[in-house]
């Protein structure tokens, strides 16, 4: 669905119309023109099963369903907003990074253990991501928030990327990620370089990295 326009680095404008409804983080509307309705939703259009699953997974950020006719502007806490277009592939993202997405996209919750078994669980716990992550599948746009803006780094089989877990925002494509440690004696005695853990992303896809190590 076309039409996400960045007004500046921290605000995005979206046309709302028939068949052009979006879900957004609750309370993130800044302004609107026309007849636009904002309805709180717990199911995010996925049925009650998905909502319970998300609540249990701790991947639940209150969302609202935006419908009607007009345009609406969104932003959150002065954070940078980055628009990502999906063309049938899957975006893996933390729920609290998601500002808004097209209702045409399917939202799901994925257990990190599905990607790497027990190591995936450890990875989630260490990096502060939790044991679950949110997925978006389909065709459409979504907007993510970050501290300091994001850069997109392409991942190819010849060029794996290492990311600081706290600066990781999202990734897409056929990507395998593992937690690598470079822990040495120095880290044990508190004289580490501060880069003890890294996420190693291999495969084909893109990773989004923010310019800060702060959580949303």
């Amino acid at each position, binding site marked *: 669905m076309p039409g996400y326009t960045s007004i500046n680095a921290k605000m995005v404008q979206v046309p709302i119309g028939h068949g052009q409804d979006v879900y957004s983080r609750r309370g993130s509307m800044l302004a609107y023109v026309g007849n636009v309705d904002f309805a709180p939703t717990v199911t995010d259009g996925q049925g009650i099963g998905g909502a319970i699953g998300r609540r249990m997974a701790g991947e639940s950020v209150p969302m609202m369903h935006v419908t009607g006719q007009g345009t609406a502007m969104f932003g959150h806490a002065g954070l940078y907003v980055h628009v990502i277009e999906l063309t049938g592939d899957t975006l893996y993202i933390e729920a609290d990074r998601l500002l808004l997405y097209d209702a045409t996209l399917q939202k799901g919750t994925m257990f990190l253990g599905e990607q790497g078994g027990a190591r995936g669980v450890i990875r989630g716990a260490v990096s502060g991501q939790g044991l679950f992550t949110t997925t978006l599948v389909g065709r459409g746009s979504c907007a993510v928030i970050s501290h300091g803006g994001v850069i997109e780094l392409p991942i190819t089989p010849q060029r794996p990327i290492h990311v600081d877990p706290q600066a990781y925002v999202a990734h897409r494509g056929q990507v395998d990620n593992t937690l690598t440690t470079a822990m040495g004696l120095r880290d044990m005695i508190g*004289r580490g*370089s*501060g880069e003890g853990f890294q996420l190693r992303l291999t495969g084909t896809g893109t990773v989004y990295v923010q310019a800060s190590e*702060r959580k949303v």
Partner: protein
Amino acid sequence: MLAVDMAGETVRAMNGSMVAYDGEMTFKRQGMTGGEGLRGALRRRVAGESMTLMEVTGQGTVYFASEATEVTLVELAGDTLLVESDSLLALDGRLQTGVQFIGLRGMGTGQGLATTKVEGQGTVAILSDGPAIALEVAPGTPLCVDPHAYVAHRGQLQQDVVTDVNWRTVLGQGSGESVQFRYQGHGLVYVQPAERGGILEI
């Protein structure tokens, strides 16, 4: 955010500031002396100008960032840059660092008694809250800077403090611009569009 292409060189960067890299990289925290020798380390400890850097070596591209602040690159060709250690993101491995005592002017502005000196040939990446601008100082046209907005300076500059404290300031009715740094001589001063909090509200 700062991207550094490396082919076996070494850069020194603020501890924990790496956000991503590709290729092969090793991260090693610098020892107590930080490449400045035992005397340098002692001076730094006394001055309270603590600085924790890590050495990054390898092949590929490494990305650095800190707290979403802006990055400005400064090229040094044998001259000296004076910068607060908090504002230093990364520097070429060939550059020398040290501590420069600056006297009492740092008191009250939250900068302390000393600042960090970087000299040699290479590139330094400095952090600023908002994009930094470089203001030129020429003989005969001194520049006054708000101490909270000052980031770094280079060149042959004399620094002194200008105060405009009067009874209004004492009563808490000042304009908020009672203390300034004045630079005279020949050089560049880097200024950021935000004011750090100091000890005194001046």
